Structure formats: structure tokens, C-alpha cells
């Protein structure tokens, strides 16, 4: 029995026999015994957090419902509970919409299923369960999200809602005719909640179920996002400017800075042609184009067909992106577009000094549809309702994983990025990524290329700036892709999550190369669904500016100031933020102020590669104007880059040659993409599953040991400084975050209290058939006389 059972608020649900029955007097307990029975329903709110509440209503509890708690215990505990009543914490601007009492949250642990009694509420920000709070003792690590508690689900985090009717699980949507006895909520961060409504009053069940369904599934207007209520309510309270060092790319200065940092300013310029979104609502107010591009060209086709700069490589080659023209039937328009592209092409392709390769991502690469299908299969593998489901799927785990195709999609993204890098790095050509709107796959590939090539992007601020540049300013449609407004399920594609998963692969392959940890990536992925931050809740910078009133001429109305996700202190205390930083990050060598100016150090691994810029590229004839133009015109005929065997050989040679050399954590970083090296992002995917919990083990154990060592090193350093000054200094505050390492588990820092006891989890299923090995299995292990040998 865990601590839960000892309190009044805990019920044993489908209980096994208590292990020591003499200690727990068995009390068959009818809920009605303890409560004002069948009387007038208590006012909502009054029962709040009392643990046991709500009359039986029309439903009488089944006799199988048993508690192993003495009645007198319940009474004393009830008092205590009342004292430390669990209250609903509302954020500024947050409103309670509906609620229901006597809801049981079902928790599975090794002694079966428990129910914790409490209240289920739905606000315009979240669904929350108010029950017995998990008590953290002082030594327990604190990694609390300040906005979202253990039992909170933001409305945008809800993925699918199921109802259980007579033991059958059915997805719930729209108007219900019948209300379920149990509510199962699958979340986008892969949590699964089970709420038993059997003891809840019927009208409350109706209210809460339809409320939850409505507020999480009905299409919403942008203006109704909680983001705005929050910002309005917060408006006058705190006006703390962002103190973070993330480059937001919302001013022309930021672009100048980036051009200078990458030495791209010789060939590329920042333009303000789209200030006030005069040219195009898809593009940011400021962006970078080739120096030779006439500014009037930008407005020609509302920014389509314009090569937009992403990043410059140390050898001057640039990564560019371009949105394609819509399919055009009219021959004369086609001619105009063709002539236009011809001119554009001449500005960026001047052999032998400047060559260009195109990479058509909407034609020859993964489709968004594929990503969507794959992820919906993949996530299902982790949204596990109970223990038997876990062990049933365990037997065929690898084939299930493979059939989701998710890991293969990750591999293809990483591979594509390596191919692009090979062009930039070895062949010294510019690379132009083309996609319909240049805001999905373009974002993935261009950011991956930069993470792999530019060590700045592997620092925390660098990575955040990269996301600002390529994703936020790059116009990735977060609102649609996350389906935050529930307006079109077809548009929901986890493109950004795919990117984070690709980065995770790199992080787990080369941990010392990244300033951030996998925990950082995990909390970043969770932040996609928190409608406090503007970062992931708009389709474009234009949409954001238009909706916060920045574009309005009315000077009376101060534009709303929205929070950015990069201000991590909104979510985590500074102590908890320690877990976001990699203590083993290899810092840049000190004398090297500007890594891009130090070719002797950077890209060490490339020095032995055929890197002769004068060598005539075997691909010189590869680029043909016609091909480019046909592609851009939307009449995509042939695959360019992928069809060639030669390309495959180049890729292999480059890949193998890089991997045969020593890794320079501040140079180019290529991931291993062989089957066994692409893995499941275990921290994100398995963190809520009690069966998958390794007590006292897994990466957190390493983290703990490393932090301890850092602490020791720091205190030694301090001692030295101390001694230099020959002064006594106050004792160092230890990192109290991770004490008692043996109590931590692989679920840390996310699910702390999933399992109370330290019994092992035993697989419940047994062997599946061996197939063709059946006859071997029947054989005997030979009995051989020892004398024979």
C-alpha cells in the first residue's frame, strides 16, 4: 500500500488482498456511509478538495469497492485534508468554466489500481484535477513547472478523449447521448489520465464531460486563445522586459548581427522591403537576400521565387530557401515567371565563382502527410492505458516501432541534411531549398544543417535564436501544425516535434557538443502546448503583430506584450533550470574569440577531404536553368539531386570519411544514421509509464554524479580563490536538486511518484511462438558425459 491508501482521499480500486491483513482492518465501505447521503447536493466549491465528497446521486457504489482504511482514520484525515485544502490555482485572466466533485483519478502501481478522490475542473486554460497533492519530502528533487502542475492539462495539450461505457473504450466527440463511467484523456505530451466518474453526480458528469469535450475539441477563434486573456490581465502588473540573450530576429539589427557573425555580409544584405508587411504576409518584416538582387524584385510575386538567405558557411557558401510559385496554367504568365526566375538565377549562379544547387523538398522528400500518419502511429505506442497493454505490445515492440516509420523519417531528415552539408562543405556550392511555402521541411532541413555545422547553434541561446530565425520568423504555421484552434485536423503535422527529435538524436550521440540537455528538449516540446507564450501560437510574425495590435494606428491602445517561451524563469525556478544545462558541455577554447575566424580549429575533420575549390566539380553540368525554373514553376518533372548514383557515392564518401576522424565538438557534427543508432527519444516518450521506470537508474544517475563532481570542482575552485585572498568565505550552497540519487528513477524529472515501492516490474506475458525454431526448442540440452570431452 502506498501512501495514497493511508489517507482518506485514497481508495483501493480493484484491490488485491492486503499483504498484511491484520494491520488493516478490512472495512467494506459504502461511500454513502461517510457522506451526507442523498441530501441536497453540496454547493460546488464547498466540497473542494475534501477528498471524499459528493453524494451517491443516483448511482450506488458497487460492493466491490473496498477501502482498507479504518473509519476513524478517515475522520481524522478528513480534518487534515480540510486544513490543507487543495485549491485551484488560477493564472491571471484564467476563468473556471465547469467542475465536478467525487471524481476518482485512477493510478496504477504495483499493488493494483488506486483511486484518488478529488475534483475535476475545466478552465479556459486547463483541465485540472484537485485531489490529494503528492507530498514531496524535503529531500525529493524539485522540478516543478510553475504554470502546470502534475494534474493539470492545458486545453491545447489534450490529444484525444475517450469514454468508457460498460468496459468499452470509445473516442468522445461532439454531443453525447450517453455519458461515460470513466474518462480517459490522452495528452499531446504523452500523459494518460483516467478519471472515474462512477461516484460523481449525474448532472456534474454531464457538465464536466461536455465542457471538456467542447473546450478542447470545438474550433476556436484565434482571438479566444488564452494567450490574450492572460496578456491583458498581466498587462499592468509586471512589465519585465526579456532579459534573455536570444536573438529574436524581429529587427533589422538582428539580421545584420547574424550576417556579420556568419561573414555572410559580403554577398548578402538585410532588407526592410516588407516592413509593415507591405509585400507579403508570409514573410517576416526583415530578411536577407543576395546583394545583387534588385529590391523591386522582392515585391514582384509577393516574395515568391525570391532566394532568402538562411545561413552562410565558413567558406562563403550559403544556404538559401525559396517558396515556389503556385501552379500556373496560363502560358503567358508562365513565360513571365520563367523570365523572372531566369534573372534571379543569374544573380546567384555565376560559375565558376558562385554555383548553386537546388533541393526541391516538396517533391523528392518526405511529405507532410507521411509525417502525420507516422506520428499518429508512433505516439500510440506510448499512450498506454494499462499494464497488460504495456506487456502485450512489448513482445512485438520492434516491429510496431518500425511500422510506425517514425525513426525512418528521422533518419531521412538527418540524411538529407548531411547531403546538403556535403554540397556546402565539400563541393563549395550554394544550396537553395525549395518548398511550396518554404515553411515546413525547409525549416527542418535548414535548422538541422545549422545545428550540425555551426557550433553556436548548439549553445542554448544559439539554438533558441535559430528557432526564432528559421521557425518563428521563417513563418512555420505553428497554429495550424499544432492544430491549436482545432479548425482543421488535416493540417495538424508535428513538424517541429520531428525537428526536436532529430536534434535529440544528435544530442544523445554527442552529448558534450551541446550546451543543453535532453531535458531541455523535452520541456521545449511540452511548451508547444502552453498558451501563455506567443512563440508557438501564431502562423507567422504578421499574424502575431496584427493580433497584438502592433499594426493598429491607434496609439491609445498599447500593443499587448506577450511572453516568449525563451524566458524559462516563467516555467521553472532557477534551481530546476540546472537540469536544462549540460554540465559536460565542452566549452569553446578560450583564446578563440570568433570560432568562424579560426579555420585551423574549426572543421578539423574536413582538412583531409578533397576540398580544392578550383577542382572542377563533377556536378558542374548538373545545374540547368530549365530544371530550376521548371521546378520553381510548380511543374516538377524530375528529381534533381536524389536520382543520381554519383550523389549517393559522394554522400557515402563524405559520411564515411567524416566518421573515420576524431570528433571535434566545435566543428562539423554529423549524426550516425545506421539502424541501431537512431533511437526512441526515451525521456520524452517513456517518462509517464510506470512499467518503464528504472528505479535508481538511467541517464539521471549520470547527471547526478556529474553534478556532484561539478559541485566539488566548484567548491575547490572557490577554496583556491579564498586562499588567494586568504579570507574565509561562506560555505558553498550545494546543488540540492538531486539528492538521494538512489531514489531517483528514469522518469525523473517528470513523473516523480509513479511507483512507491521498490518491487521489480515483472513482465506478465510470456513467450510468443518461435516459428521455424520450434523443433529446436523441443530438443534437449545435451547430456554429455564429462569424460568424453
Amino acid at each position, binding site marked *: 500500500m502506498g501512501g495514497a491508501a493511508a489517507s482518506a482521499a485514497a481508495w483501493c480500486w480493484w484491490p488485491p488482498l492486503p499483504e498484511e491483513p491484520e494491520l488493516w482492518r478490512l472495512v467494506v465501505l459504502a461511500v454513502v456511509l461517510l457522506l451526507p447521503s442523498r441530501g441536497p447536493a453540496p454547493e460546488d466549491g464547498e466540497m473542494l478538495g475534501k477528498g471524499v465528497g459528493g453524494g451517491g446521486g443516483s448511482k450506488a457504489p458497487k460492493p466491490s469497492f473496498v477501502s482498507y482504511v479504518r473509519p476513524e482514520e478517515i475522520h481524522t484525515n478528513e480534518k487534515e485534508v480540510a486544513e490543507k485544502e487543495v485549491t485551484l490555482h488560477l493564472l491571471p485572466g484564467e476563468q473556471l468554466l465547469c467542475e465536478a466533485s467525487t471524481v476518482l483519478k485512477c493510478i496504477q502501481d504495483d499493488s493494483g489500481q488506486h483511486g484518488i478522490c478529488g475534483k475535476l475542473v475545466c478552465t479556459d486554460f486547463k483541465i485540472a484535477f484537485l485531489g490529494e497533492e503528492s507530498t514531496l519530502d524535503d529531500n525529493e528533487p524539485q522540478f516543478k513547472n510553475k504554470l502546470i502542475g502534475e494534474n493539470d492539462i492545458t486545453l491545447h495539450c489534450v490529444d484525444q478523449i475517450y469514454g468508457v461505457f460498460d468496459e468499452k473504450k470509445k473516442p468522445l466527440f461532439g454531443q453525447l447521448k450517453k455519458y461515460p463511467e470513466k474518462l480517459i484523456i490522452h495528452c499531446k505530451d504523452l500523459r494518460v489520465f483516467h478519471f472515474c466518474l462512477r461516484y460523481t453526480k449525474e448532472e456534474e458528469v454531464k457538465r464536466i464531460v461536455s465542457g471538456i469535450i467542447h473546450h478542447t475539441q470545438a474550433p476556436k477563434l484565434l482571438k479566444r486563445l488564452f494567450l490574450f486573456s492572460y496578456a491583458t490581465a498581466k498587462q499592468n502588473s509586471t512589465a519585465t522586459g526579456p532579459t534573455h540573450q536570444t536573438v529574436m530576429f524581429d529587427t533589422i539589427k538582428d539580421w545584420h548581427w547574424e550576417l556579420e557573425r556568419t561573414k555572410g555580409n559580403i554577398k548578402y544584405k538585410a532588407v526592410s522591403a516588407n516592413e509593415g508587411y507591405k509585400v507579403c504576409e508570409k514573410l517576416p518584416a526583415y530578411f536577407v537576400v543576395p546583394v545583387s538582387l534588385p529590391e523591386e524584385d522582392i515585391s514582384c510575386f509577393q516574395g515568391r521565387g525570391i532566394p532568402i538567405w538562411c545561413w552562410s558557411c565558413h567558406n562563403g557558401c550559403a544556404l538559401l530557401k525559396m517558396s515556389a510559385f503556385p501552379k500556373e496554367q496560363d502560358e503567358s504568365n508562365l513565360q513571365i515567371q520563367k523570365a523572372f526566375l531566369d534573372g534571379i538565377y543569374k544573380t546567384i549562379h555565376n560559375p565558376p565563382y558562385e554555383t548553386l544547387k537546388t533541393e526541391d523538398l516538396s517533391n523528392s522528400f518526405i511529405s507532410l502527410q507521411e509525417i502525420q500518419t507516422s506520428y499518429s502511429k508512433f505516439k500510440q505506442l506510448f499512450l498506454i492505458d494499462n499494464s497488460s497493454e504495456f506487456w502485450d505490445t512489448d513482445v512485438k515492440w520492434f516491429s510496431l516501432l518500425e511500422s510506425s516509420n517514425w525513426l525512418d523519417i528521422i533518419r531521412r531528415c538527418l540524411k538529407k541534411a548531411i547531403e546538403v552539408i556535403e554540397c556546402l562543405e565539400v563541393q563549395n556550392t550554394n544550396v537553395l531549398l525549395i518548398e511550396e511555402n518554404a515553411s515546413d521541411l525547409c525549416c527542418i532541413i535548414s535548422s538541422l544543417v545549422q545545428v550540425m555545422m555551426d557550433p553556436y547553434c548548439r549553445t542554448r541561446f544559439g539554438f533558441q535564436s535559430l528557432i526564432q530565425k528559421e521557425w518563428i520568423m521563417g513563418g512555420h504555421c505553428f497554429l495550424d501544425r499544432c492544430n491549436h484552434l482545432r479548425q482543421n485536423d488535416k493540417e495538424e503535422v508535428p513538424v517541429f516535434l520531428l525537428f526536436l527529435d532529430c536534434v535529440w538524436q544528435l544530442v544523445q550521440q554527442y552529448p558534450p557538443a551541446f550546451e543543453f540537455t535532453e531535458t531541455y528538449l523535452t520541456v521545449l516540446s511540452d511548451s508547444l502546448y502552453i498558451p501563455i507564450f506567443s512563440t508557438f501560437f501564431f502562423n507567422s510574425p504578421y499574424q502575431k503583430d496584427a493580433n497584438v495590435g502592433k499594426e493598429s494606428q491607434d496609439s491609445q491602445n498599447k500593443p499587448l506584450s506577450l511572453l516568449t517561451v525563451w524566458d524559462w524563469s516563467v516555467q521553472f525556478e532557477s534551481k530546476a533550470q540546472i537540469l536544462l544545462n549540460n554540465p559536460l558541455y565542452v566549452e569553446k577554447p578560450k583564446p578563440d574569440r570568433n570560432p568562424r575566424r579560426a579555420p585551423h580549429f574549426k572543421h578539423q575533420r574536413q582538412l583531409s577531404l578533397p576540398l580544392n575549390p578550383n577542382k572542377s566539380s563533377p556536378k558542374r553540368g548538373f545545374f540547368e536553368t530549365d530544371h530550376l525554373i521548371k521546378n520553381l514553376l510548380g511543374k516538377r518533372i524530375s528529381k534533381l539531386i536524389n536520382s543520381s548514383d554519383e550523389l549517393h557515392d559522394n554522400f557515402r564518401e563524405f559520411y564515411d570519411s567524416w566518421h573515420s576522424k*576524431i*570528433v571535434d565538438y566545435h566543428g562539423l557534427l554529423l549524426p550516425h544514421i545506421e539502424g541501431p543508432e537512431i533511437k526512441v527519444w526515451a525521456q520524452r516518450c517513456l517518462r509517464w509509464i510506470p512499467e518503464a521506470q528504472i528505479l535508481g537508474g538511467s541517464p539521471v544517475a549520470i547527471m547526478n554524479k556529474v553534478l556532484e563532481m561539478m559541485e566539488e570542482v566548484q567548491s575547490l575552485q572557490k577554496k583556491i580563490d579564498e*586562499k588567494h585572498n586568504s579570507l574565509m568565505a561562506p560555505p558553498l550552497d550545494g546543488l540540492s536538486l538531486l539528492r538521494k540519487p538512489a531514489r531517483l528513477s528514469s522518469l525523473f524529472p517528470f513523473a516523480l511518484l509513479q511507483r512507491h515501492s521498490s518491487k521489480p516490474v515483472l513482465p506478465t506475458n510470456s513467450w510468443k511462438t518461435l516459428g521455424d525454431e520450434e523443433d529446436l526448442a523441443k530438443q534437449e540440452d545435451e547430456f554429455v558425459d564429462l569424460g568424453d570431452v
Partner: protein
Amino acid sequence: MEKSSSCESLGSQPAAARPPSVDSLSSASTSHSDHSAHIKSASVISSDSISTSADNFSPDLRVLRETNKLAEMEEPPLLPGENIKDMAKDVTYICPFTGAVRGTLTVTNYRLYFKSMERDPPFVLDASLGVISRVEKIGGASSRGENSYGLETVCKDIRNLRFAHKPEGRTRRSIFENLMKYAFPVSNNLPLFAFEYKEVFSENGWKLYDPLLEYRRQVLSWIHPESQATITRCSQPMVGVSGKRSKEDEKYLQAIMDSNAQSHKIFIFDARPSVNAVANKAKGGGYESEDAYQNAELVFLDIHNIHVMRESLRKLKEIVYPNIEETHWLSNLESTHWLEHIKLILAGALRIADKVESGKTSVVVHCSDGWDRTAQLTSLAMLMLDGYYRTIRGFEILVEKEWLSFGHRFQLRIGHGDKNHADADRSPVFLQFIDCVWQMTRQFPTAFEFNEYFLITILDHLYSCLFGTFLCSSEQQRGKENLLKRTVSLWSYINSQLEDFTNPLYVSYSNHVLYPVASMRHLELWVGYYIRWNPRMKPQEPIHSRYKELLAKRAELQKKVEELQREISSRSSSSSERAGSPAQCATPVQTVV
């Protein structure tokens, strides 16, 4: 990372001038075959990282070296007791990863060695002969086409080596004959190399394990320090179809039960699937009936027999060597069942450990024979329950006790020096055990004192026949062969250079019971072992090297603190200082990693 260049210099410099420690490192990198061209991973894996010295070169070979520069540079390093048996120039090694490469192939009484100066750094392939399970000729004298005439060796460590000879060179026949002779000495009435190996280490590994100190009764494996619950092992009871009973056996179980005051029950774990146990009854074996053995509960653990395991490993090799199919990797892996077997063994050990730890009951473990699956289960359960076995020495003792002393038939299962490669008694029982241990180290990265390299080294010398440790099939045979006197123990080698095998992240929480999660979600194929020949695989544990840097940093700072301390105390020696009393800076230093 100039390890392979030091190997390159092997012949050109007077070998004796090199410090022996560096030497052993350099051969570590070279031994690892196809990786040798890939320096970054070179430090990770090695099979035969034993130092050599110049004295091993016989006088006539010295002459050869002076006359032929190239051959000299392509010669192998030799161990004490090792000598060259055959050498062929102009042999092409067909590397499945980096393509054909031409060089010199040498066969000694211990190893097969190939080196090519064609590449920079030089390409080296080094394999102990013990690892070879089969040698085959490819192509006849009339074979057309490049590289179609030569030899192929199939190895026990998940690789095949293919060499092409020039048909006109006549080198193939003699290499083939020498390989057949020295790779399979047992079939040729020759001694295994372990009996000729003459290295002296600072520690004698044979003295590590004293059975009388380690256990009281022959079959008692482990006793819980608090509850007195025990793990006991035996072979299957001789019940038979007639249901005959053995009074002695029943009494014995009763005694086990009685010795544990806390529980009146005993659990009998039968490693086999229940179907097989029933089938065995027909042959006079079988399982305990609960009528005869009162208060005993029988649990079947569903672990398959040696034949199923052997087949599973064969399939595994097929999918990992030489090429890995990218897109179907996972379903291919699943179809080998290898990890499923690992899961069941771990799950079985978990059940045993759980009964002993939380049930406080004694357990008896057996399979059909009592030295294969039983050894896997008891030793893993002991690793889970007792932190002592997670130290380097503790683990060595565990292997000595549960595997060697209790008579796992290594000779039979591995087939040392035996040319009969198709023998049905071969099975990767011990490999599976080490794999399970590796899975545990993955799940508990700080709970084991040893690192991955330690486990790989054990497996490499399971086959190498360099040490006496894994030879023979029983204590009795080992005594007869006088292994303790005539061979060197693997533990002598390992314990003489512990730094290489130590996990820098080790935290000794010896009192903790570790329960790994026996779910496919947490089991991984051990890439560092099974796919280590593939240079495209990731080198292991960059964290460890970073962590070692931290340790070094700490040591450096510690030194600085002490220096400053001295300075301060010398300056103000008269006044009793409060700033940093000696006790204050006496933070324990542990620089050995």
C-alpha cells in the same frame, strides 16, 4: 590519438626502447581490425591488448627485418611464447567496409595478423586464432576474376575474414594448413596457446577466488544478509514418468526451507518452458511435484534451450555482419529473437531476486542440467541483490563461482581449439549472460565499477585461449590440466591494469537492490560488441572521457588547494590559522579512474 602510428613504428624502432605501458595501448588499437583505420574509436575496443617486447623476435626474423623494410613493417607484435608460423606477402584482405587492401598475412601460434602499409594510417587486422570457428577455401586455381581465390574464416566474435591470394603465389595452401593446425590445436593434439603463453603480471588472478571463503555448501549460491533467505541451484530432479521420489532430495529442500526462519515456503524456479519440463519427464528427468515437495511452489521461467539460443545468435550475425539493412533494422532484429531471450533471462532473474528480497523466501533454481540457464539466472539474481558483485573483483569472483566452480562447460559450449564447428553442444550461454550484464549497466550506469570494455575483454578472452580461465569444462578437468600452474588467469591481466576497466561514474551503493526493467523498451542490441567491426557505428561513451577530464580537473584543483594551504601555513606558521584548517581541505581524492 597517435595510437596506430605507434603501431606503425613497431618494426622500425628498437622495440625495447618503448615503454611497455604505451606499448600495450598501441596494440590495443591495432587489434581491432577494420577499425584500425578509424582512429577515434581505436581506444575503445580491443581483444588482445597484451604488450609485446623485442625479445620475441627470433634471430632469423631479425635478419629478415633488416633486409626487407616493408615486410618488417607489416610484421605482427609478438607475445612472450608466441612465434611466427607462416607469412604470406601480397595477400588481399577484402574488408567489407573499406574495400580490398593488400598487405602481409602472418599466422603465429596465437594469432592471425594482417597489415597493409598501403593506407595511411596503416591498416591492421589482428585476431586471435581461438576466435576462429571455421576456415574455408574459396575458389580453385582456375578461378577467374579478381580476389576470387583465397580463404575465408568464420569467427566466433561475429565477423568473417576473407583473404584473396594470388593463385600463382602458392601461399594459400600453406596458410590454410597452418591455420587448420594452429587454430584447432585440440583437433591436432597440440597444446592451446594458453599453455605456451609466458607473461608475468603483477597480480596472480588464480589467487582471487577461494571457494571455502565464498560459500559454505557446494550448491548454495547466495545468502541474504538479513533474512537468511538463500539462492540454491541444482539440476532437474530425477522424477521421471513414474513419479518416483527421492527422499534425500525432498529432505534437502526441507533443510533449505528450515534454515530460513522467516518463511515457511520455498520457491523452485525451473528455467525451462513448462512444455519442455513435461517432455523431460518421459526421459526420466522432469520437475518437482508439489505433492512430494510440500510448501514448495514451482515456477517455470520459459527460457529456451541451448539450440534455440545458438540459432538466434546465428540469425543475429546475419543481420549485423557485414551490412545492416537500414529500413528493416528493427523487424530484422526482432526476428532473431535475441533480445527476447535476453528479456526472458533478465525477467527470470528478476523473479528470483524479488522472491529472495521482498518475499524473504529461499529459492532453488534449476534447468535440465544445472550449469547453463541456471548459472545465468543465479549469477544475474546475485548481481541484482548484492552490490559486491558489481565491483570488478566481485564480478570476477561471481564468474569464478557461478560459472567456473559450478561447472559451466566452457570447453563444450565454446569448443576451444576444436575444428568441429557444427557441434550441437556449442551455445552462446555465457555471451548471453554478459549481454544481460551489459543491459544492466546501461540501465544503471553508475552502479557498476567496471565499464563496457571490461565486459568486451572478458568475451574476447572467452575465445582467445590466451588465458587459462575459460578452458576446460569442470573443476576436475582444470585440476587435471594443472591450469593454475601452467596458464595465466585472465584476472591477472585485468587486475594489473584496472584503470582501463574502471567506470569513472561508479558510485558504490552496495546495499541497493537493482531491478532492471525487462521490457523491450529498455533493451538494446549491444552495438559495441555485436557491431563493433563496422566503422560506421558510433564510438562509445563520449561522456566517460568528458567525465575523466572533470576528474583530472578536480585532482589538479585539489593539488592547487594543497599547495596554497602549504604556502599559507608557512607564511603564518606562528598564528593558529582558522582559514582552511587541514581538515577542511581533506576532501577525499579519488583520482584512480
